[in-house]
């Protein structure tokens, strides 16, 4: 006795996983009822499809079944998607969620810190429009192996600068294009100060404009400010610069001039075979040929090139030739005691050490990916660093008390193998360059001596590359190479941070919060 019912279960019966396979029997629709246990078979076009029995509705659902809500809606059972979809959704959601979580955390940390320091930026400037803010200098050395010299400064700009801007602190970012640039800059700055103090160099006359500071005010402003060193390489270069500046001699020194003097003394531009190798057999031939040099451009160097070893000057480390320089101070006139470092050493602005690693190279791609998803640690570090500067928490640098000389030691493990190869690469480039240079010098000399006419390319350009230009070009290249080599010697992992025992208790450091633990 089947109650003819409007069965809604025609085409929307959910498939039961435990559907018993029953032989399809075509039978009219009306004989199906929700309570029958026989698997009803419906008249479909194929006639062969199994339909599972309609699911029994219990409880409130059976009441609702009369309301017109579809049966499938009432019997809905949530179930997991298939294995493949599961894999897909897991991967996608986890990756995007980790990205979003990370960026949200970064934003939160940034906002929090900015809110902490906003009030400092909204203080009134003392002195009105001619007042001065605190100014900090940021040194970021070039990372070995990376041709982009700006990476460390970009790290600073991204992670520390926003808080300084919010706090109203000014910053200056001197560029350091080569390895060792920071050392040379600091060296010349300190040297200038020392020489001016000792009276060996005159102080520039001061303009009497309202905004210009007197030297004392300038120094005071520097001390109130601070220095940020991004990365271990900058730290090493800075310390080396301090050593050369304060512990070295006070002879007048300008790096470009030093290199230029070195270059003039090796006979590349003379009327002879340029010397590329350090073989000692060539020395005698060099001496003979240099003496018959008649080229006007090499007149300045010919007098000093009589010495055979200076022909190899560009390869060996020759001492600074101050005798043929055109500067006014002769080294012998400076009394010995001036060269002594003046103890106690003058106050230096406090230093903040900001750890920094630059991932480059194929093997470091996993680290790059990791750092893409964990930027919040960098933001946290940067914000702590900025807070320590803004709140001016200073501490003396005592060797016994803290481990600062090992600052960021593990970043050196990330130096590329290419970077360690720097010396060889430079030598190779140099050799190639000098081989080509020989030809070009010859051509240029021939033209200048009137021995030949312009060839077709030169006529198009309208001029020949003169010897002077070749010299300039060579000087520029040598500056880069020598600068990089010197800098690499300072920052390579084998060398420790420069330290002098007399420096204990001299420098000031900004204290990062986690150092308190």
């Amino acid at each position, binding site marked *: 006795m089947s109650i003819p019912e409007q069965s809604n279960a025609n085409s929307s019966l959910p498939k039961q996983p435990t559907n018993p396979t029953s032989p399809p029997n075509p039978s009219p629709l009306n004989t199906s009822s929700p309570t029958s246990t026989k698997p009803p078979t419906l008249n479909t076009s194929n006639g062969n499809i199994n339909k599972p029995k309609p699911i029994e509705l219990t409880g409130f659902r059976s009441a609702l079944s009369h309301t017109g809500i579809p049966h499938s809606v009432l019997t809905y059972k949530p179930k997991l998607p298939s294995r493949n979809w599961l894999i897909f959704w897991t991967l996608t959601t986890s990756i995007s969620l980790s990205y979003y979580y990370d960026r949200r955390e970064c934003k939160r940390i940034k906002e929090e810190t900015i809110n902490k320091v906003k009030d400092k*930026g909204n203080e009134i*400037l003392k002195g*009105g429009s001619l007042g001065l*803010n605190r100014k900090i200098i940021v040194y970021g050395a070039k990372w070995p192996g990376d041709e982009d010299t700006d990476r460390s400064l970009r790290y600073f700009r991204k992670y520390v600068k926003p808080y300084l*801007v919010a706090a109203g*602190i*000014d910053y200056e970012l001197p560029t350091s294009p080569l390895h060792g640039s920071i050392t040379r800059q600091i060296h010349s700055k300190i040297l200038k100060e020392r020489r001016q103090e000792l009276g060996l160099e005159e102080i520039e006359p001061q303009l009497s404009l309202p905004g210009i500071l007197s030297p004392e005010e300038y120094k005071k402003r520097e001390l109130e400010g601070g220095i940020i060193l991004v990365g271990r390489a900058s730290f090493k270069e800075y310390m080396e610069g301090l050593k050369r500046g304060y512990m070295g001699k006070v002879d007048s020194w300008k790096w470009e001039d030093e290199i230029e003097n070195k270059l003039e003394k090796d006979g590349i531009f003379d009327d002879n075979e340029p010397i590329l190798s350090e073989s000692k057999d060539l020395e005698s031939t060099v001496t003979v040929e240099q003496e018959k040099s008649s080229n006007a451009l090499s007149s300045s160097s010919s007098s000093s090139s009589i010495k055979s070893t200076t022909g190899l000057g560009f390869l060996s480390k020759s001492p600074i030739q101050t005798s043929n320089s055109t500067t006014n101070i002769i080294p012998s006139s400076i009394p010995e005691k001036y060269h002594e470092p003046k103890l106690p050493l003058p106050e230096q602005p406090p230093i903040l050490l900001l750890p920094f690693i630059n991932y480059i190279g194929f093997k470091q791609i996993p680290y790059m990916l990791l750092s893409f998803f964990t930027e919040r640690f960098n933001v946290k570090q940067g914000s702590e660093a900025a807070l320590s500067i803004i709140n001016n928490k200073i501490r003396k640098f005592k060797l016994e008390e803290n481990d600062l000389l090992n600052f960021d030691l593990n970043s050196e493990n990330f130096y590329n193998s290419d970077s360690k190869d720097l010396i060889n690469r430079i030598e190779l480039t140099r050799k190639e360059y000098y081989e080509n240079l020989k030809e070009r010098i010859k051509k240029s000399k021939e033209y200048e001596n009137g021995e030949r006419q312009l060839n077709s390319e030169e006529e198009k350009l309208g001029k020949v590359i003169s010897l002077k230009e070749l010299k300039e070009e060579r000087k520029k290249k040598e500056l880069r190479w020598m600068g990089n080599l010197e800098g690499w010697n300072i920052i390579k992992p084998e060398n420790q941070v420069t330290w002098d025992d007399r420096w204990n208790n001299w420098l000031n450091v900004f204290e990062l919060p986690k150092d308190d633990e």
Partner: protein
Amino acid sequence: MSFLFGGGNRSVEGSVDPAKIEMAVAELDMITDVFNRLVNSCHTKCISQNPNNHRYVEGDLLKGESVCIDRCTAKFFEVNKKVGERMSAMGSAAQATGSFGR
């Protein structure tokens, strides 16, 4: 620029004078224009983003604003210089090629 005025007026009264004065006036106009632009753009950037909002947080200059203005003016002049150099290079190139092709 005061030397232009001082030199012009006291010396020869002649047809050269108006030309010099004209030049001086033009130069003054240019400088005033640059100054006004600078003030406007740095004020908009650093002090209040909305020019119709005539409210200052404080009457005196704030630290953050001062740093911002320093950097804004430095950048402005640097941009000015660079654009000027580029224009003069373009101008001389145009002259050399007979000002052909714009």
